[in-house]
């Protein structure tokens, strides 16, 4: 059967009242869970897994997948409105999205996020439908050497995320130091744990992001409690302007492509995707100085990337039985619990289920766009509540969210400590995004270079012999050398 026939068959599975109802339920739950700090889509899917036991496997998977990508839309809300990333991949959205909100453009930020997520999501699902076998073969050519160079590419970009490169790199170094804590990823030896069992698995990303962004932001705002006014939001500012749309179109395309490619790699997830998309966009931008101060193309790229990545992660899951993300791992577990054995034979043996899922992702993305466009101005109006009343509410939501993520008080304390650290960083003008960027990339960086050298028995030639690695190596060299050459020319150009 051709892909079109299979897809048509998938749509007939989806267009029944029951399927549509559960897809709708899934995406709405995903939207809500994504917006809560701490609980990401994968934890949300696990929480609702028992509810799907009464359903047939296809409907259950459609609903759970709805939570997965619905979470990507929902994460935007808290990132933009209160600078608390709802899930890990929302960090880059928060950077510019919240600056836009402060300038009264929350509605525009939320709209472009919804549109960007939708376009990238639909594009990614089309890729899942038509070129999954080719993409999964491509995904397998990505391994430790490629991951290492990808991580280097991300880290070198950190220098550009802030006013002063020295200050930005100091923040990145701090992020790398935080990532050093915990069992060594290769030998398993405890490192910098100071004999605290709680530190053995390292410091999780969630409490750091909630603390450094959400809590720190509120602490900094509370300093000026006497003149805290609600953020100016006029109705006519709620919508996207034509100029903003023009700025974002290419960003969505680039972000979506990067998200899809990173998403299909089993070793890197949506947070890496959104960060790479963001720094790429900044590099291509004609006015990179606006990034970090409310650049709408930054929001568009990050959101397009994280949604494309969430969908892309289903490619290795469907084609190989390898989860590309934490959420797809739960989807795989759900398949197993429903008596379906995942693996490379899945697409042949369970064609109805697989094509129903693919069709449902098209439908679900449409539903999410329809929900989110009117929701954007509505949610933006939330900022009309006087900030004095929002502030303690944000603190409570952040701390309770951190607890809900692990059900462990240690996580909440961690969150508090990083809140104070984030506040100090604001006061001393050390940019915060490089810290979380480095924290996300650190493990990839360290694990993959050591895996690479184990694979090559210690020979560095592994980074040039593999075609994709060699290509990435050129990119890395360019990204380091170009700014240096530029700086030298500026300094000595006149002579």
């Amino acid at each position: 059967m051709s892909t079109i026939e299979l897809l048509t068959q998938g749509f007939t599975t989806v267009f029944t009242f029951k399927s549509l109802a559960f897809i709708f339920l899934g995406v709405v739950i995903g939207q809500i869970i994504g917006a809560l700090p701490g609980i990401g889509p994968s934890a949300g899917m696990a929480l609702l897994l028992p509810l799907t036991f009464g359903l047939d496997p296809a409907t259950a998977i459609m609903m759970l997948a709805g939570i997965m990508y619905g979470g990507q839309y929902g994460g935007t809300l808290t990132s933009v409105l209160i600078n608390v990333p709802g899930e890990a991949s929302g960090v880059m959205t928060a950077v510019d999205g919240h600056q836009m909100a402060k300038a009264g453009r929350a509605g525009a930020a939320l709209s472009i996020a919804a549109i960007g997520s939708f376009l990238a999501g639909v594009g990614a699902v089309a890729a899942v439908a038509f070129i999954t076998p080719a993409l999964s073969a491509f995904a397998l050519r990505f391994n430790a050497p490629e991951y290492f160079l990808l991580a280097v590419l991300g880290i070198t970009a950190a220098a550009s995320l802030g006013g002063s490169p020295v200050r930005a790199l100091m923040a990145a170094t701090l992020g790398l130091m935080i990532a050093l804590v915990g069992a060594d990823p290769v030998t398993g030896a405890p490192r910098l744990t100071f004999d605290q069992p709680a530190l053995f698995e390292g410091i999780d990303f969630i409490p750091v992001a909630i603390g450094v962004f959400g809590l720190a932001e509120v602490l900094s705002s509370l300093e000026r409690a006497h003149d805290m006014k609600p953020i100016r939001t006029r109705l006519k500012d709620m919508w996207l302007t034509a100029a903003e749309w023009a700025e974002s179109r290419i960003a969505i395309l680039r972000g979506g492509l990067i998200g899809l490619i990173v998403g299909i790699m089993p070793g890197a997830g949506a947070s890496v995707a959104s960060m790479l998309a963001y720094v790429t966009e900044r590099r291509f931008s004609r006015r990179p100085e606006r990034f970090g101060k409310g650049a709408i193309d930054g929001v568009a790229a990050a959101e397009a990337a994280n949604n494309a990545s969430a969908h892309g992660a289903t490619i290795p899951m469907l084609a190989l039985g390898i989860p590309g993300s934490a959420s797809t791992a739960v989807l795989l577990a759900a398949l197993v619990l429903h008596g379906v054995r995942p693996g490379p034979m899945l697409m042949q043996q369970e064609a109805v289920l697989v094509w129903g899922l693919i069709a449902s992702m098209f439908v679900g993305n449409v539903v999410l766009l329809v929900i989110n466009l009117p929701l954007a101005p509505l949610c933006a109006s939330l900022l009309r509540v006087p900030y004095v009343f929002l502030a303690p509410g944000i603190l409570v939501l952040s701390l309770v969210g951190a607890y809900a993520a692990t059900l462990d008080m240690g996580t909440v304390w961690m969150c508090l400590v990083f809140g104070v650290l984030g506040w100090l960083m604001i006061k001393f003008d050390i940019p915060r995004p490089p810290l979380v960027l480095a924290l996300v990339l650190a493990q990839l960086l360290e694990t993959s270079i050591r895996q690479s050298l184990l694979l090559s028995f210690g020979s560095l030639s592994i980074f040039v012999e593999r075609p994709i690695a060699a290509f990435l190596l050129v990119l890395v060299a360019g990204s380091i050398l170009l700014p240096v050459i530029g700086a030298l020319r500026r300094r000595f150009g006149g002579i």
Partner: protein
Amino acid sequence: MTLKAPPSLAAFVFCGVLALGFVSSAVPADAQEMRAPRGPVEITVGAGAGGTPDVIMRSIAKIMADEKIVDVPIVVQNRTGAGHANAFNFVLGKRGDENTLLTLASPVFTTPIVQGTPSVIDRITPIAGFIQSELVLLVPANSQFKSLKEFVEGAKARPSRVRIAGGASGGNDHLAMALIEQAAGIKMTYIPHESGSAALATFLGGNVEGYFATLSEGLPHMQAGKARAIAILSEKRRTDEGYKNVPTAREEGVDVVYTQFWGVGGPPGMDPAVAAWWADKFRKATESKAWQDSLKEKLQLGSFHALADADAYFKREQDTFRRLLTSVGLAKPQ
């Protein structure tokens, strides 16, 4: 997991296990006073949603509810992080509690050994060990090694040049490799990954020579023509289609038997009557058709050990873990 030991001792232990298992399941209700816990029960899992221990507990909790074996509500709660320490410390802190159970997976045994902290197994109330999963050594379909014998010879000829991709250091696949190294007198290179599926991607990408899979994980890749199984680390061959032609490691001259297992325990000082009640419920659930079917479907084993027998079983496994972790240099003295 059964230990690699001189055959006579292994046989003795194995028979002992069978005998004890027989006794505990043959003497039901009346031998031990039983009392049901009141109110909702939480089964704590140290693994994330979707991990094998999580799937096992959700499956059995579903059967207990569906077949009305247990009428109090059961919630499977993931308390992830710190190598299952968040989960086991939570349960250890609930001395005498009747509404909390701990999922026993290998990190519950190994984390204290690696960190040099007091054993968890020695402190919990053992309830049941009820499911095991055998491991199979996969090589790429185009591998030059057609059998474990050739694999071992290849590793002998080029020490440390045969690479195995696996999960975290000190995990089941790492320890299985260490056992093979010891038994065959060879040295291989272990490449650890953040998860088993990341390691599978490395294996399928053709980057390494070998990968340890559970039977149900390996089968689809064998059927798709991407991988070949050269040895199963079990006592005897499987009879299932797909695995019946795969020899055991022992047949190939490598004396290794290694099986993953999972179980459940209660907090320290749990009322023996409640523990006995739970052991009985787990036995009933594992005897259900749904459970037996799922074992068959997932190619897992269902050897059942309860209470005192489970205690001996867990302690024995703990000793094996300690010995293996010491041999790979990961155990930290207390």
